[in-house]
């Protein structure tokens, strides 16, 4: 299990407490406690907004995603099994799914029926990964690895993650052969994985 403690700007102990506090807040949300939702918002809205903004490149749309995510948390709190992962990680996953859906409808790009996206959207409350927030050090390490990736690899990976494209769509966007795109993403992932193992 990848149990990694601390978040950007916060110490390891603080985040471990926060992770527990998030679970307790979720319990209170399930009983209708608005202050618990506000608590979650104050802790994690920045993370959620930042990811939505990166994907949508539009503040108003990103704000809508934040509202949607926290509204979904409000509605589904009692159905979320915290054994499946940290609340914040769940919210980030929801944010990505919603932002990419918005992106696709914005460009009215049809859902490709024959090929799955490189990074699949996972049904929110049934996500099976054991997700945790990464520590500030881990994120920095990953950012450094991203920064030294060859541009072609980085672009392919970012199209896969932040735009939710399929291999074929990326190949089309970059005017490169499908095999080349797959190789680039695979190589990028290997390097990122190495950066996280430290």
């Amino acid at each position, binding site marked *: 299990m990848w149990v990694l403690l601390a978040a950007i700007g916060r110490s390891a102990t603080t985040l471990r407490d926060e992770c527990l506090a998030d679970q307790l807040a979720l319990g209170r949300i399930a009983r*209708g406690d*608005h*202050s618990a939702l506000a608590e979650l918002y104050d802790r994690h809205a920045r993370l959620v907004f*930042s990811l939505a903004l990166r994907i949508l490149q539009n503040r108003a749309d990103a704000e809508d995603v934040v509202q949607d995510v926290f509204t979904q948390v409000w509605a589904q*709190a009692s159905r979320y099994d915290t054994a499946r992962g940290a609340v914040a990680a769940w919210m980030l996953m929801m944010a990505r799914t919603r932002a990419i859906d918005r992106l696709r409808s914005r460009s009215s790009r049809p859902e490709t029926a024959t090929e799955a996206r490189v990074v699949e959207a996972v049904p929110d409350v049934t996500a099976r990964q054991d997700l945790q927030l*990464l520590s500030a050090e881990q994120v920095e390490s990953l950012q450094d690895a991203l920064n030294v990736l060859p541009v072609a690899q980085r672009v392919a990976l970012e199209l896969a993650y932040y735009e939710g494209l399929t*291999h074929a769509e990326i190949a089309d966007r970059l005017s490169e052969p499908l095999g080349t795109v797959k190789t680039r993403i695979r190589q990028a992932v290997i390097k*990122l994985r190495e950066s996280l193992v430290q």
Partner: protein
Amino acid sequence: MDAIKDDERPELEPPILQGLAQAVPQVDPPPELRARLLRSVSTSPTSTFTSPRPVAWWLATAASLALVAGLTIYTAQLRTRITGLESELRDTRARADAAQQLMIVAQRTATGAQTAVAILTAPDVARVDLAGQQPVSPSASARAFWSRSRGMVFNASNLPPLPAGRTYQLWVVTAQAPISAGLLTPDIQGSVSEVFNTPPDIPQPIAMAVTIEPAGGVPAPTGDKYLVGTL
């Protein structure tokens, strides 16, 4: 989708996905968004009210309506239904409309409901939220209102069904030994509501817990904890 499984597709495992989610430039959302969000959820129900699973039910008299409405945020969210008291209560959960956000407590005696309201309105009432425990009861939850002078109202939901020969027992945990408040038998949907008389002179409670015990209860807890909450 598995038919097109591609073993050249890289495994973007969770930590990498998580890292990519967090690695973006961090930007604060505008302050108005927080207010907008909280305004919009204040009018929408939470999952406990809209899910098909049962919630705890409170029974209140018409005369007590104003008192109940004046209580904590939790009770203020309840819309109590005005109804008569019955000496024998049946499980009405299957018929109740969850979307109306009703909370009704099933009482065993005609005076039970009056006691419940008295406890809720007591000046010394304390609220305890109890949470389910891994691995036995992860989705169980409970709430207790305890007044030293008037007793305890306890309601729980999503308790696992009891095996034969077992019961749930509610404990008030103090700095000394835990004190049994009483026994609980959930209905088939895992819900239970009870009013207990608690001795007024018990030591200051620290926490409450529900354990599983042999039928008839025991003088001290022996079984697994199914619900735990601190004061």
